């Protein structure tokens, strides 16, 4: 089984740890989990590295999650990498907007580990 690399983008360090724990509770083994506290840091982390999964908040300082998604389209290392938004912004318009610019899943905070599992596992396909 391939060990995965994930990037978690959230301005809350507590939330980054909870998301990472939820992924592990979903039974996914990671070789590495990278963290970024905003979209700009997230893009920086992808310059020279490839990831198998990206989980991203929306409301963040410096660069929010929707702008991160837009700019991600131009990052070669990120092509085809599934992005799941995990955010308090749970409105229909936010969901539609995020999905229209490349997100593959959308989880509203508060969330359970089961919800993370339901959204993430299908996206990992044969890599898990």
């Amino acid at each position, binding site marked *: 089984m391939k060990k995965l690399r994930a990037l978690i983008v959230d301005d809350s360090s507590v939330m980054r740890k909870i998301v990472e724990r939820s992924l592990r509770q979903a039974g996914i083994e990671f070789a590495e989990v990278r963290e970024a506290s905003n979209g700009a840091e997230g893009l920086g982390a992808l310059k020279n590295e490839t990831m198998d999964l990206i989980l991203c908040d929306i409301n963040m300082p410096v660069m929010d999650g929707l702008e991160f998604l837009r700019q991600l389209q131009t990052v070669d290392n990120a092509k085809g990498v599934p992005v799941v938004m995990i955010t308090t912004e*749970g*409105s229909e318009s936010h969901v539609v907007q995020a999905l229209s610019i490349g997100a593959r899943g959308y989880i509203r905070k508060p969330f359970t580990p089961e919800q993370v599992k339901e959204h993430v596992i299908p996206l990992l396909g044969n890599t898990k």
Partner: protein
Amino acid sequence: MKTANEITASDKVPEGWSPLLELAVREVFEIMLGCKLEAQTAPAPVSGDFTAMVGLAGQLCGLLTLHCSAHSAALMASRMLGADVKETDAQMWDAIGEIANMIAGNFKNKLTGMGDRCVLSVPTVITGSDYSLRSMADTGPLEVAFLFEGAPISVAVEVHS
């Protein structure tokens, strides 16, 4: 139930919002901290004083605040991270800010049609008790109070018309 559009300057926050706020708070604590809050009929004085604030902007405009003691903030971080209080002490600011953020998001998403027309600020956390907070809201605060692990906490929403 009044919508945010129908609040006038002399109004209080619509009464129908109180159970929605209470539910929003309970859900965040149950799902993210794994604990049930006990109801309090009247807000009790909160000692220690950590205040997390999240701004609401758009059609629903105002401020949500979460008020708790330092001990409660430390316990919240511990519960969220599933670790001992001593290990999570440095993260209590982040933890209660994120809890306030989730409560605000959960609350506005429960108000019909408001999810699309209201955005949240990133949270801010104040420590200490020697301050006055003026949100410029023109409604009286809607406040719900609970006991978290035996200690009082409160969540309030004030709204601009």
